[in-house]
Protein backbone atom coordinates (compact mmCIF):
# COMPACT_ATOMS: atom_id res chain seq x y z
CA UNK A 1 0.00 0.00 0.00
CA UNK A 2 1.28 3.44 -0.92
CA UNK A 3 0.96 6.22 1.60
CA UNK A 4 -1.64 8.91 0.79
CA UNK A 5 1.14 11.47 0.37
CA UNK A 6 2.85 9.32 -2.27
CA UNK A 7 -0.44 8.79 -4.11
CA UNK A 8 -1.03 12.52 -4.07
CA UNK A 9 2.50 13.08 -5.40
CA UNK A 10 1.91 10.69 -8.27
CA UNK A 11 -1.30 12.47 -9.18
CA UNK A 12 0.47 15.82 -9.11
CA UNK A 13 3.13 14.48 -11.46
CA UNK A 14 0.55 13.03 -13.84
CA UNK A 15 -1.43 16.26 -13.93
CA UNK A 16 1.73 18.28 -14.56
CA UNK A 17 2.83 15.94 -17.39
CA UNK A 18 -0.58 16.02 -19.07
CA UNK A 19 -0.79 19.78 -18.63
CA UNK A 20 2.59 20.36 -20.24
CA UNK A 21 1.84 17.86 -23.02
CA UNK A 22 -1.39 19.65 -23.89
CA UNK A 23 0.26 23.07 -23.72
CA UNK A 24 2.89 21.88 -26.20
CA UNK A 25 0.34 20.37 -28.56
CA UNK A 26 -2.28 23.14 -28.60
CA UNK A 27 -0.50 25.32 -31.21
CA UNK A 28 -0.09 22.32 -33.51
CA UNK A 29 -3.78 21.45 -33.16
CA UNK A 30 -4.82 25.06 -33.85
CA UNK A 31 -2.61 25.21 -36.96
CA UNK A 32 -3.81 21.88 -38.30
CA UNK A 33 -7.47 22.82 -37.73
CA UNK A 34 -7.02 26.24 -39.34
CA UNK A 35 -5.36 24.64 -42.34
CA UNK A 36 -8.68 22.91 -42.94
CA UNK A 37 -10.88 26.02 -42.62
CA UNK A 38 -11.62 28.69 -45.21
CA UNK A 39 -10.35 32.24 -44.69
CA UNK A 40 -13.91 33.56 -44.37
CA UNK A 41 -14.77 31.10 -41.67
CA UNK A 42 -11.70 32.06 -39.66
CA UNK A 43 -12.24 35.80 -39.96
CA UNK A 44 -15.97 35.51 -39.22
CA UNK A 45 -15.57 33.32 -36.14
CA UNK A 46 -12.19 33.04 -34.41
CA UNK A 47 -8.63 31.80 -34.88
CA UNK A 48 -9.48 28.94 -32.56
CA UNK A 49 -12.35 26.74 -33.60
CA UNK A 50 -13.52 23.50 -35.14
CA UNK A 51 -13.95 23.58 -38.96
CA UNK A 52 -17.65 23.89 -40.01
CA UNK A 53 -16.72 22.87 -43.54
CA UNK A 54 -13.57 20.79 -44.06
CA UNK A 55 -11.63 22.81 -46.61
CA UNK A 56 -8.90 20.71 -48.22
CA UNK A 57 -8.38 23.20 -51.07
CA UNK A 58 -6.01 25.21 -48.88
CA UNK A 59 -3.43 22.49 -49.33
CA UNK A 60 -3.82 22.27 -53.11
CA UNK A 61 -3.60 26.01 -53.46
CA UNK A 62 -0.64 26.47 -51.16
CA UNK A 63 1.26 23.63 -52.78
CA UNK A 64 1.05 24.75 -56.40
CA UNK A 65 -0.72 28.05 -57.14
CA UNK A 66 -0.56 30.45 -54.25
CA UNK A 67 1.47 33.62 -54.88
CA UNK A 68 4.49 34.28 -52.76
CA UNK A 69 6.38 37.52 -53.46
CA UNK A 70 4.95 37.99 -56.95
CA UNK A 71 5.59 34.37 -57.98
CA UNK A 72 2.51 32.21 -58.15
CA UNK A 73 3.92 28.72 -57.87
CA UNK A 74 2.88 27.77 -54.35
CA UNK A 75 5.49 26.48 -51.90
CA UNK A 76 6.39 23.48 -54.05
CA UNK A 77 9.63 24.95 -55.51
CA UNK A 78 10.73 26.09 -52.05
CA UNK A 79 10.07 22.65 -50.64
CA UNK A 80 12.25 21.25 -53.40
CA UNK A 81 14.93 23.84 -52.55
CA UNK A 82 14.85 22.75 -48.92
CA UNK A 83 15.17 19.13 -49.97
CA UNK A 84 18.04 19.99 -52.32
CA UNK A 85 19.84 21.66 -49.42
CA UNK A 86 18.92 19.30 -46.61
CA UNK A 87 19.43 15.88 -48.18
CA UNK A 88 22.99 16.35 -49.53
CA UNK A 89 24.09 18.41 -46.52
CA UNK A 90 22.75 15.77 -44.12
CA UNK A 91 24.35 12.85 -45.92
CA UNK A 92 27.73 14.51 -46.51
CA UNK A 93 28.04 15.92 -42.99
CA UNK A 94 27.03 12.60 -41.44
CA UNK A 95 29.53 10.60 -43.47
CA UNK A 96 32.36 13.08 -42.93
CA UNK A 97 31.48 13.30 -39.24
CA UNK A 98 31.68 9.52 -38.99
CA UNK A 99 35.14 9.49 -40.56
CA UNK A 100 36.30 12.41 -38.40
CA UNK A 101 34.84 10.92 -35.22
CA UNK A 102 36.49 7.60 -36.06
CA UNK A 103 39.86 9.27 -36.61
CA UNK A 104 39.68 11.25 -33.38
CA UNK A 105 38.42 8.43 -31.18
CA UNK A 106 40.30 5.40 -32.46
CA UNK A 107 43.55 6.79 -33.87
CA UNK A 108 45.85 8.56 -31.52
CA UNK A 109 47.86 11.30 -33.14
CA UNK A 110 49.63 14.41 -31.94
CA UNK A 111 47.18 17.20 -31.20
CA UNK A 112 44.11 15.00 -31.53
CA UNK A 113 42.57 16.49 -28.40
CA UNK A 114 43.08 20.01 -29.69
CA UNK A 115 41.44 19.18 -32.97
CA UNK A 116 38.52 17.58 -31.18
CA UNK A 117 38.22 20.62 -28.93
CA UNK A 118 38.24 23.03 -31.87
CA UNK A 119 35.75 21.00 -33.88
CA UNK A 120 33.30 20.74 -31.02
CA UNK A 121 33.69 24.42 -30.16
CA UNK A 122 31.59 24.88 -33.30
CA UNK A 123 28.67 23.35 -31.41
CA UNK A 124 28.62 26.28 -29.02
CA UNK A 125 29.31 29.09 -31.50
CA UNK A 126 26.16 31.18 -32.05
CA UNK A 127 24.83 31.26 -35.62
CA UNK A 128 24.85 35.04 -35.79
CA UNK A 129 28.60 35.16 -35.16
CA UNK A 130 29.20 33.12 -38.28
CA UNK A 131 27.04 35.21 -40.61
CA UNK A 132 29.67 37.69 -41.76
CA UNK A 133 32.48 35.14 -42.26
CA UNK A 134 30.13 33.02 -44.34
CA UNK A 135 29.06 36.05 -46.37
CA UNK A 136 32.69 36.68 -47.28
CA UNK A 137 33.34 33.03 -48.07
CA UNK A 138 30.26 32.74 -50.29
CA UNK A 139 31.13 35.97 -52.08
CA UNK A 140 34.72 34.90 -52.72
CA UNK A 141 33.63 31.49 -53.96
CA UNK A 142 30.92 33.04 -56.12
CA UNK A 143 28.29 30.95 -54.35
CA UNK A 144 26.03 33.69 -53.03
CA UNK A 145 22.35 32.95 -53.56
CA UNK A 146 22.92 29.34 -54.59
CA UNK A 147 21.62 26.08 -53.20
CA UNK A 148 25.19 24.71 -53.34
CA UNK A 149 26.31 27.53 -51.05
CA UNK A 150 23.77 26.53 -48.40
CA UNK A 151 24.75 22.88 -48.78
CA UNK A 152 28.35 23.82 -48.11
CA UNK A 153 27.53 25.95 -45.06
CA UNK A 154 25.30 23.32 -43.49
CA UNK A 155 27.75 20.52 -44.23
CA UNK A 156 30.66 22.31 -42.62
CA UNK A 157 28.72 23.57 -39.63
CA UNK A 158 27.04 20.22 -39.16
CA UNK A 159 30.43 18.57 -38.86
CA UNK A 160 30.77 19.86 -35.30
CA UNK A 161 27.70 17.91 -34.22
CA UNK A 162 28.22 14.83 -36.33
CA UNK A 163 31.87 14.52 -35.30
CA UNK A 164 30.98 14.89 -31.63
CA UNK A 165 28.17 12.32 -31.84
CA UNK A 166 30.20 9.76 -33.75
CA UNK A 167 33.34 10.27 -31.69
CA UNK A 168 31.46 9.65 -28.44
CA UNK A 169 29.87 6.54 -29.89
CA UNK A 170 33.14 5.15 -31.23
CA UNK A 171 34.89 5.70 -27.91
CA UNK A 172 33.01 2.62 -26.71
CA UNK A 173 34.57 0.40 -29.38
CA UNK A 174 37.01 -1.86 -27.52
CA UNK A 175 40.69 -1.06 -27.99
CA UNK A 176 41.42 -4.75 -28.60
CA UNK A 177 39.29 -4.67 -31.74
CA UNK A 178 41.54 -1.98 -33.19
CA UNK A 179 44.65 -3.86 -32.13
CA UNK A 180 43.40 -7.03 -33.80
CA UNK A 181 42.74 -5.08 -36.99
CA UNK A 182 46.21 -3.55 -36.92
CA UNK A 183 47.79 -6.97 -36.57
CA UNK A 184 45.60 -8.29 -39.37
CA UNK A 185 47.10 -5.54 -41.48
CA UNK A 186 44.03 -3.41 -42.09
CA UNK A 187 44.62 0.29 -42.77
CA UNK A 188 42.66 3.41 -41.84
CA UNK A 189 39.88 3.14 -44.42
CA UNK A 190 39.62 -0.63 -44.45
CA UNK A 191 39.04 -0.63 -40.68
CA UNK A 192 36.48 2.13 -41.16
CA UNK A 193 34.51 0.42 -43.93
CA UNK A 194 34.73 -3.17 -42.75
CA UNK A 195 34.68 -2.88 -38.97
CA UNK A 196 33.57 0.53 -37.72
CA UNK A 197 30.87 1.49 -40.22
CA UNK A 198 28.93 -1.80 -39.84
CA UNK A 199 28.73 -1.04 -36.10
CA UNK A 200 27.47 2.47 -36.73
CA UNK A 201 23.78 2.36 -37.80
CA UNK A 202 22.44 3.46 -34.39
CA UNK A 203 24.59 6.58 -34.27
CA UNK A 204 24.20 7.30 -37.99
CA UNK A 205 20.43 7.30 -37.60
CA UNK A 206 20.77 9.72 -34.71
CA UNK A 207 22.99 12.11 -36.66
CA UNK A 208 20.82 11.89 -39.78
CA UNK A 209 17.68 12.78 -37.81
CA UNK A 210 19.49 15.53 -35.98
CA UNK A 211 21.02 17.02 -39.10
CA UNK A 212 17.90 16.67 -41.23
CA UNK A 213 15.66 18.36 -38.67
CA UNK A 214 18.17 21.05 -37.93
CA UNK A 215 18.99 21.94 -41.54
CA UNK A 216 15.40 21.73 -42.72
CA UNK A 217 14.21 24.05 -39.94
CA UNK A 218 17.15 26.43 -40.32
CA UNK A 219 16.02 29.91 -41.19
CA UNK A 220 18.72 32.52 -40.62
CA UNK A 221 21.14 31.39 -43.35
CA UNK A 222 18.30 30.67 -45.74
CA UNK A 223 16.90 34.17 -45.47
CA UNK A 224 20.34 35.84 -45.40
CA UNK A 225 22.12 34.11 -48.24
CA UNK A 226 19.33 33.39 -50.69
CA UNK A 227 16.58 35.43 -52.29
CA UNK A 228 13.57 34.79 -54.50
CA UNK A 229 13.42 31.42 -56.16
CA UNK A 230 16.50 30.07 -54.39
CA UNK A 231 15.05 30.30 -50.88
CA UNK A 232 14.35 27.26 -48.73
CA UNK A 233 10.80 26.84 -47.49
CA UNK A 234 11.44 28.32 -44.04
CA UNK A 235 12.47 31.61 -45.64
CA UNK A 236 9.62 31.47 -48.15
CA UNK A 237 7.10 31.14 -45.31
CA UNK A 238 8.08 34.61 -44.13
CA UNK A 239 7.39 36.06 -47.56
CA UNK A 240 4.05 34.32 -47.38
CA UNK A 241 3.14 35.89 -44.06
CA UNK A 242 4.26 39.27 -45.39
CA UNK A 243 1.73 38.90 -48.20
CA UNK A 244 -0.91 37.90 -45.70
CA UNK A 245 -0.49 41.21 -43.91
CA UNK A 246 -2.98 42.96 -46.25
CA UNK A 247 -5.71 40.32 -46.38
CA UNK A 248 -5.49 37.69 -43.63
CA UNK A 249 -5.21 34.21 -45.17
CA UNK A 250 -4.85 32.15 -42.01
CA UNK A 251 -6.14 28.98 -43.64
CA UNK A 252 -3.51 29.04 -46.39
CA UNK A 253 -0.81 30.11 -43.99
CA UNK A 254 -1.57 27.23 -41.68
CA UNK A 255 -1.59 24.74 -44.54
CA UNK A 256 1.81 26.05 -45.68
CA UNK A 257 3.22 25.68 -42.18
CA UNK A 258 1.92 22.12 -41.88
CA UNK A 259 3.38 21.12 -45.25
CA UNK A 260 6.72 22.74 -44.44
CA UNK A 261 6.91 20.97 -41.09
CA UNK A 262 5.97 17.57 -42.47
CA UNK A 263 9.38 16.20 -43.66
CA UNK A 264 11.26 16.50 -40.35
CA UNK A 265 8.15 15.22 -38.57
CA UNK A 266 8.06 12.15 -40.78
CA UNK A 267 11.79 11.54 -40.35
CA UNK A 268 11.31 11.67 -36.62
CA UNK A 269 8.27 9.40 -36.69
CA UNK A 270 10.14 6.75 -38.67
CA UNK A 271 13.48 7.06 -36.91
CA UNK A 272 12.46 8.37 -33.52
CA UNK A 273 12.76 5.15 -31.63
CA UNK A 274 16.31 4.74 -32.97
CA UNK A 275 16.97 8.32 -31.96
CA UNK A 276 16.18 7.77 -28.31
CA UNK A 277 17.92 4.40 -28.32
CA UNK A 278 20.99 5.69 -30.13
CA UNK A 279 21.52 8.61 -27.80
CA UNK A 280 21.64 6.36 -24.77
CA UNK A 281 23.11 3.14 -26.16
CA UNK A 282 26.75 2.23 -25.92
CA UNK A 283 28.52 0.42 -28.71
CA UNK A 284 28.82 -3.30 -29.14
CA UNK A 285 30.25 -5.43 -26.45
Amino acid sequence: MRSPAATLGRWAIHIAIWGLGIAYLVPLVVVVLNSLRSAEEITQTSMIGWPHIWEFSNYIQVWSTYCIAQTCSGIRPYMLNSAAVTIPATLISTLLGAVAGYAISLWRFKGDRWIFGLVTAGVFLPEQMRLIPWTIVLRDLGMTNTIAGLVMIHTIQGLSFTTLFCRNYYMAIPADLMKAAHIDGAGFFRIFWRIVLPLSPPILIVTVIWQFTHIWNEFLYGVTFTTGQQQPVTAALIALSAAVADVPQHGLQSAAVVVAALPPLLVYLFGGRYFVRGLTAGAVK
Partner: protein
Amino acid sequence: MSALVIRDLHKRFGSVGVLKGINLDIDDGDFTVLVGPSGCGKSTLLNIIAGLETASSGEIVIDGKVVNTIAPKDRDIAMVFQTYALYPSMTVRQNITFGMECRNVPKPQREEAVARVARLLQIEPLLGRKPAQLSGGQRQRVAMGRALVRDPKLFLFDEPLSNLDAKLRVEMRMEIKQLHARIGATIVYVTHDQIEAMTMATRIAVMHQGEVQQFADPETIYNRPANVFVARFMGAPPMNTVPARIASGQVVVGDVRLPAPPAAAGWEGREVILGIRPECIAEPTRQFGEAGTPGIRIMAPVELTEPTGAETIVVLRMGGEKVLGRVAPDIRLTVGATAAFAIDARKICLFDPQTERLIA
Protein backbone atom coordinates in the same frame (compact mmCIF):
# COMPACT_ATOMS: atom_id res chain seq x y z
CA MET B 1 67.99 -20.13 -32.84
CA SER B 2 66.05 -17.70 -30.74
CA ALA B 3 62.58 -16.91 -32.02
CA LEU B 4 62.40 -13.77 -29.91
CA VAL B 5 65.08 -11.77 -28.16
CA ILE B 6 64.36 -8.75 -26.00
CA ARG B 7 67.35 -6.64 -25.10
CA ASP B 8 67.41 -4.05 -22.34
CA LEU B 9 63.88 -2.92 -23.05
CA HIS B 10 62.60 0.18 -21.28
CA LYS B 11 59.18 1.78 -21.43
CA ARG B 12 58.31 5.05 -19.76
CA PHE B 13 54.97 6.81 -19.66
CA GLY B 14 56.05 10.36 -18.88
CA SER B 15 58.25 10.04 -15.82
CA VAL B 16 56.83 6.66 -14.80
CA GLY B 17 58.98 3.68 -15.73
CA VAL B 18 56.71 0.77 -16.63
CA LEU B 19 59.38 -1.56 -17.96
CA LYS B 20 62.86 -1.24 -16.50
CA GLY B 21 65.37 -3.12 -18.57
CA ILE B 22 63.75 -6.35 -19.74
CA ASN B 23 66.00 -9.06 -21.15
CA LEU B 24 64.48 -12.26 -22.48
CA ASP B 25 65.73 -14.87 -24.88
CA ILE B 26 62.98 -17.15 -26.14
CA ASP B 27 63.77 -20.27 -28.11
CA ASP B 28 61.94 -21.65 -31.11
CA GLY B 29 58.99 -23.74 -29.96
CA ASP B 30 59.02 -22.43 -26.40
CA PHE B 31 55.78 -21.76 -24.57
CA THR B 32 56.79 -18.74 -22.50
CA VAL B 33 54.37 -17.37 -19.94
CA LEU B 34 54.74 -13.82 -18.67
CA VAL B 35 53.11 -13.83 -15.26
CA GLY B 36 52.77 -11.21 -12.58
CA PRO B 37 50.27 -9.17 -10.60
CA SER B 38 48.28 -6.48 -12.43
CA GLY B 39 50.35 -3.43 -13.22
CA CYS B 40 53.62 -5.35 -13.44
CA GLY B 41 54.07 -4.40 -17.10
CA LYS B 42 53.42 -7.78 -18.69
CA SER B 43 50.68 -6.59 -21.04
CA THR B 44 52.72 -3.55 -22.02
CA LEU B 45 55.61 -5.86 -22.84
CA LEU B 46 53.37 -8.02 -25.00
CA ASN B 47 52.00 -4.97 -26.80
CA ILE B 48 55.53 -3.79 -27.49
CA ILE B 49 56.45 -7.21 -28.88
CA ALA B 50 53.36 -6.97 -31.11
CA GLY B 51 54.26 -3.45 -32.20
CA LEU B 52 51.06 -1.96 -30.81
CA GLU B 53 53.13 0.20 -28.48
CA THR B 54 56.63 1.54 -28.94
CA ALA B 55 59.53 0.97 -26.57
CA SER B 56 61.30 3.95 -25.02
CA SER B 57 64.60 2.16 -25.56
CA GLY B 58 65.94 -1.32 -26.17
CA GLU B 59 65.60 -3.86 -28.94
CA ILE B 60 63.06 -6.47 -30.01
CA VAL B 61 64.41 -9.13 -32.32
CA ILE B 62 62.01 -11.58 -33.95
CA ASP B 63 63.60 -14.42 -35.88
CA GLY B 64 66.93 -12.63 -36.10
CA LYS B 65 65.47 -9.34 -37.32
CA VAL B 66 65.22 -6.14 -35.26
CA VAL B 67 61.56 -5.16 -35.52
CA ASN B 68 61.42 -1.96 -33.46
CA THR B 69 60.36 0.16 -36.41
CA ILE B 70 58.34 -2.49 -38.23
CA ALA B 71 54.53 -2.27 -38.26
CA PRO B 72 52.56 -4.98 -36.38
CA LYS B 73 51.27 -6.51 -39.59
CA ASP B 74 54.79 -7.06 -40.90
CA ARG B 75 56.21 -8.64 -37.75
CA ASP B 76 55.03 -12.15 -38.56
CA ILE B 77 53.03 -12.43 -35.35
CA ALA B 78 49.47 -13.27 -34.42
CA MET B 79 47.68 -12.25 -31.26
CA VAL B 80 44.78 -13.58 -29.21
CA PHE B 81 43.07 -11.09 -26.91
CA GLN B 82 41.35 -11.36 -23.56
CA THR B 83 38.17 -9.87 -25.03
CA TYR B 84 38.55 -12.10 -28.13
CA ALA B 85 38.27 -8.94 -30.26
CA LEU B 86 36.25 -10.67 -32.96
CA TYR B 87 34.85 -8.29 -35.57
CA PRO B 88 31.16 -8.18 -34.59
CA SER B 89 29.74 -7.56 -38.04
CA MET B 90 31.64 -10.37 -39.75
CA THR B 91 30.93 -14.08 -39.79
CA VAL B 92 33.39 -16.50 -38.22
CA ARG B 93 34.74 -17.28 -41.68
CA GLN B 94 35.26 -13.58 -42.47
CA ASN B 95 36.87 -13.04 -39.09
CA ILE B 96 39.40 -15.73 -39.84
CA THR B 97 40.12 -14.59 -43.40
CA PHE B 98 40.19 -10.83 -42.75
CA GLY B 99 43.96 -10.79 -42.30
CA MET B 100 44.47 -12.65 -45.56
CA GLU B 101 42.02 -10.33 -47.26
CA CYS B 102 44.14 -7.38 -46.11
CA ARG B 103 47.17 -9.08 -47.59
CA ASN B 104 45.44 -9.84 -50.89
CA VAL B 105 45.78 -13.58 -50.54
CA PRO B 106 43.89 -15.25 -53.42
CA LYS B 107 40.48 -16.66 -52.57
CA PRO B 108 41.20 -20.39 -53.09
CA GLN B 109 44.14 -20.16 -50.73
CA ARG B 110 42.02 -18.41 -48.11
CA GLU B 111 39.35 -21.10 -48.33
CA GLU B 112 41.94 -23.79 -47.92
CA ALA B 113 43.45 -22.09 -44.86
CA VAL B 114 40.06 -21.62 -43.22
CA ALA B 115 39.21 -25.27 -43.81
CA ARG B 116 42.49 -26.38 -42.25
CA VAL B 117 42.11 -24.22 -39.12
CA ALA B 118 38.41 -24.99 -38.73
CA ARG B 119 39.23 -28.70 -38.77
CA LEU B 120 42.06 -28.26 -36.30
CA LEU B 121 39.87 -26.35 -33.83
CA GLN B 122 36.65 -28.19 -34.65
CA ILE B 123 34.73 -25.03 -35.46
CA GLU B 124 33.51 -26.08 -38.92
CA PRO B 125 29.79 -25.81 -38.01
CA LEU B 126 30.32 -22.26 -36.74
CA LEU B 127 31.87 -20.73 -39.86
CA GLY B 128 28.65 -19.03 -41.01
CA ARG B 129 27.76 -17.53 -37.64
CA LYS B 130 28.33 -14.07 -36.23
CA PRO B 131 30.34 -13.68 -33.00
CA ALA B 132 27.19 -12.66 -31.09
CA GLN B 133 25.75 -16.12 -31.78
CA LEU B 134 28.69 -17.90 -30.16
CA SER B 135 29.37 -18.91 -26.56
CA GLY B 136 32.45 -17.67 -24.73
CA GLY B 137 34.41 -20.84 -25.40
CA GLN B 138 33.48 -20.82 -29.07
CA ARG B 139 34.55 -17.20 -29.41
CA GLN B 140 37.85 -18.06 -27.81
CA ARG B 141 38.31 -20.85 -30.29
CA VAL B 142 37.55 -18.58 -33.23
CA ALA B 143 40.00 -16.00 -31.88
CA MET B 144 42.64 -18.72 -31.83
CA GLY B 145 41.64 -19.75 -35.33
CA ARG B 146 42.23 -16.22 -36.51
CA ALA B 147 45.74 -16.41 -35.07
CA LEU B 148 46.49 -19.93 -36.27
CA VAL B 149 45.48 -19.26 -39.86
CA ARG B 150 48.38 -16.85 -40.17
CA ASP B 151 50.95 -19.53 -39.40
CA PRO B 152 53.17 -16.86 -37.85
CA LYS B 153 56.63 -17.00 -36.33
CA LEU B 154 55.27 -15.94 -32.98
CA PHE B 155 51.93 -16.32 -31.20
CA LEU B 156 51.02 -13.73 -28.60
CA PHE B 157 48.28 -14.46 -26.09
CA ASP B 158 47.00 -11.65 -23.87
CA GLU B 159 45.16 -13.24 -20.93
CA PRO B 160 43.01 -15.26 -23.33
CA LEU B 161 41.21 -17.30 -20.68
CA SER B 162 40.40 -14.60 -18.14
CA ASN B 163 36.88 -14.01 -19.46
CA LEU B 164 35.87 -17.68 -19.33
CA ASP B 165 34.19 -19.41 -16.42
CA ALA B 166 36.34 -21.63 -14.23
CA LYS B 167 35.37 -24.97 -15.79
CA LEU B 168 35.84 -23.80 -19.36
CA ARG B 169 39.12 -22.17 -18.45
CA VAL B 170 40.54 -25.50 -17.32
CA GLU B 171 39.38 -27.17 -20.54
CA MET B 172 40.78 -24.46 -22.80
CA ARG B 173 44.03 -24.49 -20.83
CA MET B 174 44.54 -28.12 -21.71
CA GLU B 175 43.50 -27.51 -25.29
CA ILE B 176 45.99 -24.71 -25.80
CA LYS B 177 48.70 -26.85 -24.28
CA GLN B 178 47.85 -29.73 -26.59
CA LEU B 179 47.71 -27.37 -29.54
CA HIS B 180 51.18 -26.12 -28.70
CA ALA B 181 52.46 -29.67 -28.49
CA ARG B 182 50.88 -30.50 -31.85
CA ILE B 183 51.95 -27.51 -33.95
CA GLY B 184 55.16 -26.70 -32.05
CA ALA B 185 54.60 -22.96 -32.29
CA THR B 186 56.52 -20.36 -30.34
CA ILE B 187 54.12 -18.77 -27.89
CA VAL B 188 54.35 -15.80 -25.55
CA TYR B 189 51.42 -15.93 -23.18
CA VAL B 190 50.47 -13.25 -20.66
CA THR B 191 48.46 -14.11 -17.57
CA HIS B 192 48.08 -13.05 -13.97
CA ASP B 193 47.07 -16.59 -13.05
CA GLN B 194 50.03 -18.50 -11.67
CA ILE B 195 48.26 -21.83 -12.16
CA GLU B 196 47.95 -21.14 -15.88
CA ALA B 197 51.63 -20.29 -15.89
CA MET B 198 52.64 -23.46 -14.06
CA THR B 199 50.45 -25.81 -16.08
CA MET B 200 51.10 -24.52 -19.58
CA ALA B 201 54.56 -23.02 -19.76
CA THR B 202 57.84 -24.51 -20.77
CA ARG B 203 59.44 -21.29 -19.49
CA ILE B 204 58.01 -18.74 -17.07
CA ALA B 205 59.01 -15.12 -16.70
CA VAL B 206 57.74 -13.79 -13.38
CA MET B 207 57.37 -10.02 -13.57
CA HIS B 208 56.97 -7.45 -10.83
CA GLN B 209 57.20 -3.65 -10.97
CA GLY B 210 58.51 -3.57 -14.51
CA GLU B 211 61.27 -6.10 -13.99
CA VAL B 212 61.67 -9.78 -14.71
CA GLN B 213 62.18 -11.36 -11.30
CA GLN B 214 63.02 -14.79 -12.64
CA PHE B 215 63.01 -16.45 -16.04
CA ALA B 216 63.18 -20.22 -15.82
CA ASP B 217 61.30 -23.48 -16.33
CA PRO B 218 58.23 -24.04 -14.10
CA GLU B 219 59.95 -26.51 -11.79
CA THR B 220 62.80 -24.16 -11.01
CA ILE B 221 60.42 -21.26 -10.51
CA TYR B 222 58.41 -23.32 -8.07
CA ASN B 223 61.15 -25.08 -6.18
CA ARG B 224 64.01 -22.61 -6.38
CA PRO B 225 62.33 -19.17 -6.54
CA ALA B 226 64.90 -16.45 -7.13
CA ASN B 227 63.48 -14.20 -4.43
CA VAL B 228 60.74 -13.83 -1.86
CA PHE B 229 58.37 -12.21 -4.36
CA VAL B 230 58.52 -15.16 -6.76
CA ALA B 231 58.26 -17.56 -3.82
CA ARG B 232 55.07 -15.98 -2.58
CA PHE B 233 53.53 -15.20 -5.99
CA MET B 234 53.80 -18.68 -7.45
CA GLY B 235 51.78 -21.39 -5.77
CA ALA B 236 48.43 -21.29 -4.00
CA PRO B 237 48.37 -21.13 -1.08
CA PRO B 238 51.67 -19.26 -1.25
CA MET B 239 54.99 -20.36 0.19
CA ASN B 240 55.39 -19.64 3.90
CA THR B 241 58.17 -17.14 4.56
CA VAL B 242 59.20 -16.71 8.17
CA PRO B 243 62.18 -15.12 9.92
CA ALA B 244 64.77 -17.70 10.99
CA ARG B 245 68.39 -18.01 12.11
CA ILE B 246 71.22 -20.33 11.11
CA ALA B 247 72.85 -21.97 14.11
CA SER B 248 75.24 -24.94 14.08
CA GLY B 249 74.16 -26.03 10.61
CA GLN B 250 70.49 -25.81 11.41
CA VAL B 251 67.67 -23.48 10.49
CA VAL B 252 66.11 -22.33 13.73
CA VAL B 253 62.57 -21.00 14.00
CA GLY B 254 61.62 -20.70 17.67
CA ASP B 255 61.84 -24.23 19.04
CA VAL B 256 61.83 -25.86 15.60
CA ARG B 257 65.16 -26.94 14.12
CA LEU B 258 65.50 -28.05 10.51
CA PRO B 259 68.69 -29.23 8.77
CA ALA B 260 70.15 -26.33 6.78
CA PRO B 261 71.14 -26.87 3.14
CA PRO B 262 74.92 -26.96 2.54
CA ALA B 263 74.85 -23.63 0.70
CA ALA B 264 73.80 -21.92 3.95
CA ALA B 265 77.21 -22.56 5.48
CA GLY B 266 78.34 -18.95 5.03
CA TRP B 267 75.31 -17.74 6.95
CA GLU B 268 76.20 -19.40 10.23
CA GLY B 269 74.84 -17.32 13.12
CA ARG B 270 72.99 -14.88 10.87
CA GLU B 271 69.34 -14.03 10.29
CA VAL B 272 67.65 -15.47 7.19
CA ILE B 273 64.15 -15.86 5.77
CA LEU B 274 62.97 -19.44 5.68
CA GLY B 275 60.71 -20.36 2.78
CA ILE B 276 58.70 -23.54 3.08
CA ARG B 277 55.82 -24.64 0.82
CA PRO B 278 52.54 -25.54 2.58
CA GLU B 279 52.68 -29.07 1.11
CA CYS B 280 55.95 -29.59 3.03
CA ILE B 281 54.01 -29.31 6.28
CA ALA B 282 51.72 -32.37 6.54
CA GLU B 283 50.20 -34.87 8.93
CA PRO B 284 52.79 -36.83 11.01
CA THR B 285 52.33 -40.15 9.16
CA ARG B 286 53.18 -38.63 5.76
CA GLN B 287 56.24 -39.86 3.86
CA PHE B 288 57.85 -37.55 1.35
CA GLY B 289 59.39 -38.13 -2.06
CA GLU B 290 59.92 -41.32 -4.01
CA ALA B 291 62.08 -42.77 -1.27
CA GLY B 292 59.26 -42.27 1.22
CA THR B 293 61.37 -40.31 3.67
CA PRO B 294 59.50 -39.59 6.89
CA GLY B 295 59.38 -35.90 7.81
CA ILE B 296 60.79 -34.10 10.79
CA ARG B 297 58.23 -34.28 13.55
CA ILE B 298 57.11 -31.10 15.27
CA MET B 299 54.34 -30.21 17.69
CA ALA B 300 52.36 -27.07 16.84
CA PRO B 301 49.12 -25.39 17.93
CA VAL B 302 46.36 -25.37 15.30
CA GLU B 303 44.73 -21.96 14.73
CA LEU B 304 42.36 -22.59 11.82
CA THR B 305 41.37 -25.32 9.38
CA GLU B 306 40.02 -24.91 5.85
CA PRO B 307 38.79 -28.19 4.36
CA THR B 308 38.79 -28.02 0.54
CA GLY B 309 37.63 -31.60 0.06
CA ALA B 310 40.80 -32.97 -1.52
CA GLU B 311 42.90 -31.75 1.38
CA THR B 312 42.68 -29.51 4.40
CA ILE B 313 44.58 -26.27 4.64
CA VAL B 314 45.63 -25.69 8.21
CA VAL B 315 46.95 -22.57 9.87
CA LEU B 316 49.43 -23.49 12.60
CA ARG B 317 52.17 -21.94 14.71
CA MET B 318 55.54 -23.36 13.73
CA GLY B 319 58.05 -22.19 16.32
CA GLY B 320 55.70 -19.32 17.11
CA GLU B 321 55.41 -18.21 13.45
CA LYS B 322 52.11 -18.47 11.63
CA VAL B 323 52.37 -20.83 8.65
CA LEU B 324 50.07 -22.78 6.34
CA GLY B 325 50.20 -26.55 6.04
CA ARG B 326 48.33 -29.04 3.87
CA VAL B 327 47.12 -32.23 5.49
CA ALA B 328 45.09 -35.19 4.28
CA PRO B 329 41.34 -34.48 4.42
CA ASP B 330 40.57 -37.33 6.82
CA ILE B 331 42.86 -35.93 9.53
CA ARG B 332 40.75 -34.44 12.32
CA LEU B 333 42.40 -31.42 13.86
CA THR B 334 40.97 -29.50 16.78
CA VAL B 335 41.32 -25.75 16.57
CA GLY B 336 43.15 -24.46 19.63
CA ALA B 337 44.77 -27.83 20.41
CA THR B 338 48.36 -28.81 19.74
CA ALA B 339 48.93 -31.46 17.08
CA ALA B 340 51.86 -33.27 15.51
CA PHE B 341 53.04 -32.42 11.99
CA ALA B 342 55.70 -33.80 9.66
CA ILE B 343 57.98 -31.35 7.86
CA ASP B 344 59.71 -32.10 4.56
CA ALA B 345 62.98 -30.22 4.96
CA ARG B 346 64.49 -31.30 1.64
CA LYS B 347 62.91 -28.46 -0.31
CA ILE B 348 63.24 -25.52 2.04
CA CYS B 349 64.53 -22.24 0.65
CA LEU B 350 66.55 -19.61 2.44
CA PHE B 351 66.50 -15.95 1.50
CA ASP B 352 68.70 -13.02 2.40
CA PRO B 353 66.55 -10.80 4.69
CA GLN B 354 68.07 -7.61 3.19
CA THR B 355 67.92 -8.30 -0.56
CA GLU B 356 65.21 -11.01 -0.29
CA ARG B 357 67.26 -13.03 -2.82
CA LEU B 358 67.58 -16.81 -2.67
CA ILE B 359 70.75 -17.93 -0.88
CA ALA B 360 70.11 -21.66 -0.59
